[in-house]
């Protein structure tokens, strides 16, 4: 709480700074502003370190020997970089395949979510029909439903559809994103109705309007939603581990845990587990790097309605 208070105070004075108001005399070599700047960077660096520390530890841990990991946790860097840990880890379980599986499921789920949330949100924002409010309430109510609550009946539904132990089953069962509808609805509401009317006069069908007029303007929001959906599904653990039985079809989170458990003999190799975790995170980090400009600005530009 103390940190927080400090942060706020530093910031509010920074806001005053943006107006470049000199409260002080001519130009002393060290102004209040300089001190504030330095304090801000120091504070942010400390926080930043705290935020990324687990990754760093995980990554460097994967390069240590098993004993080294526990010998001195304060020592971040390994004495020797055991890159071979990665090779061994990759050999000890089909992580490549797991990552591929996760990618496949996450990708198709994401595409499906983007498509159906867009359609649904478009209908909610641009059509008038009876039961519209009810429809929206239904979606919002679903948001309050813990996913775990739906597992059992959902499982049976999948079984009835013959989609157990298939990626298609996973994709289909994750295809309704309540957040997606909620988020896109807010974004679509911000598109001026006259654009849609102009397109109607231009003779475009509703689908065409959505595709050619609305969506291109929401690229940032779509990327954001896409990334969120992708990450969530890539990382998802509980539900896939219930649906998938065949080892070859496992997603990465299940894979890692399986690896954990399958290491079920004395002398658990922690550096391998760290390596496995690192391997699992890397694709996401890369994806995040690529899209971070969009995702960070995306939420900012098209954020939820104020």
């Amino acid at each position: 709480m103390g940190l927080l208070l400090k942060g706020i105070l530093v910031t509010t004075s920074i806001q005053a700074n943006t107006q470049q108001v000199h409260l002080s005399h001519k130009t002393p070599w060290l102004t209040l502003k300089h001190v504030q700047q330095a304090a801000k960077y120091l504070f942010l660096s400390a926080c930043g370190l705290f935020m990324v520390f687990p990754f760093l530890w995980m990554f460097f841990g994967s390069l240590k020997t098993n004993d080294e990991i526990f010998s001195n946790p304060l020592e971040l860097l390994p004495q020797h970089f055991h890159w071979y840990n990665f090779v061994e880890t990759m050999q000890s379980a089909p992580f490549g395949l797991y990552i591929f599986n996760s990618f496949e499921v996450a990708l198709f789920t994401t595409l499906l979510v983007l498509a159906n949330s867009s359609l649904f949100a478009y209908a909610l924002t641009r059509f008038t029909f009876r039961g519209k409010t009810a429809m929206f309430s239904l979606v919002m109510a679903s948001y309050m439903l813990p996913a775990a609550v739906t597992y059992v009946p959902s499982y049976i539904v999948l079984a009835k559809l013959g989609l157990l132990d298939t990626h298609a089953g996973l994709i289909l069962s994750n295809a309704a994103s309540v957040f997606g509808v909620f988020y896109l609805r807010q974004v679509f509401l911000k598109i001026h109705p006259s654009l849609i009317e102009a397109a109607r006069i231009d003779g475009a069908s509703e689908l065409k309007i959505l595709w050619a007029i609305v969506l291109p303007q929401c690229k940032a929001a779509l990327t954001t939603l896409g990334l969120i959906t992708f990450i969530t599904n890539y990382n998802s653990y509980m539900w896939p581990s219930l649906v998938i039985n065949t080892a070859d079809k496992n997603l990465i989170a299940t894979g890692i845990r399986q690896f954990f458990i399958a290491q079920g003999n004395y002398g658990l190799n922690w550096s391998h587990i760290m390596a496995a975790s690192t391997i699992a995170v890397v694709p996401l980090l890369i994806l995040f790097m690529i899209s971070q400009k969009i995702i960070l600005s995306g939420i900012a530009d098209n954020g939820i309605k104020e």
Partner: protein
Amino acid sequence: MLSVNNKMKQYWQLLFFLSPLLLPLLLFWVLPFICSIYISFTDWDYISPTYDWVGMDNYRYMLDDSQFLQALNNTLVFSLAVVIPTVAIGLGFALLLQKRFAGSSFFRAIIFSPWITPTVAVSIVWSWVFDSKHGLANELLGLIGVPSVSWFEHGNTAMFVVVLVTIWQAVGWTMLFFISALNKIPSSIYEASLIDGCSAWTRFLKITLPLVSPTTFFLLIVNIINAIQAFDQFQILTQGGPGGETRTLLYWFYQLAFQQYDMGSATATAVIIFLITAFLTSLNVWIGKRWVYY
């Protein structure tokens, strides 16, 4: 709004737009929930084709069950302990990083990054950090002369760890929403306040805070819902222990459903979780009317 001569055509069009989402929504959310409500009035064991209708028995049993009450209490404590700091710290970071400056997007990315990691992977790291013997946390405490703490062996400290990890993950996300809200405040309003001559603190309290209140409100609700639905971090860090002191309702549901196969009680718990979420959300909406400015 739109005049379409052909009613049928309009109908099909609507169906085309709604059904791709409605289908999975009904199949995997609404239908299961309705089933759950039904099951909560039975003693179904998940597999047996037969079950008995037990009426309110599951609910009655539950409301009088010390373990349920403990889980309920834990859930509320956890939600409160997570939501308020998350929103407050998120706002703090947003204020710091709102304006672009050298390195601002770097810091934003860093603070956001915990959110993208699989909870499964990163919780492992945290469990080491708080290892009672050689954990980093204790080493650091040792440096400043504080005796080590057996983090996972006491209810309070174990809960603290889970809360910390949850905040750690959610803060960046919260920050982004605040940044967007702050950027929407016209700069002329700040300038007006400069001319009115208020202190930085007054400006924060009297102007910034009220103006981002709709976002604060939204984030409170989303974070409450997320907190109530938190599962992975408990599963990996504490498994509800020690002695059930970090067992939340959702975790309790999980154990009832997937360890004891007591579907009636489990679904009754689920319904209660839903009701609590709905209650907290409406409570927030109600209180929100007093402090949220639109």
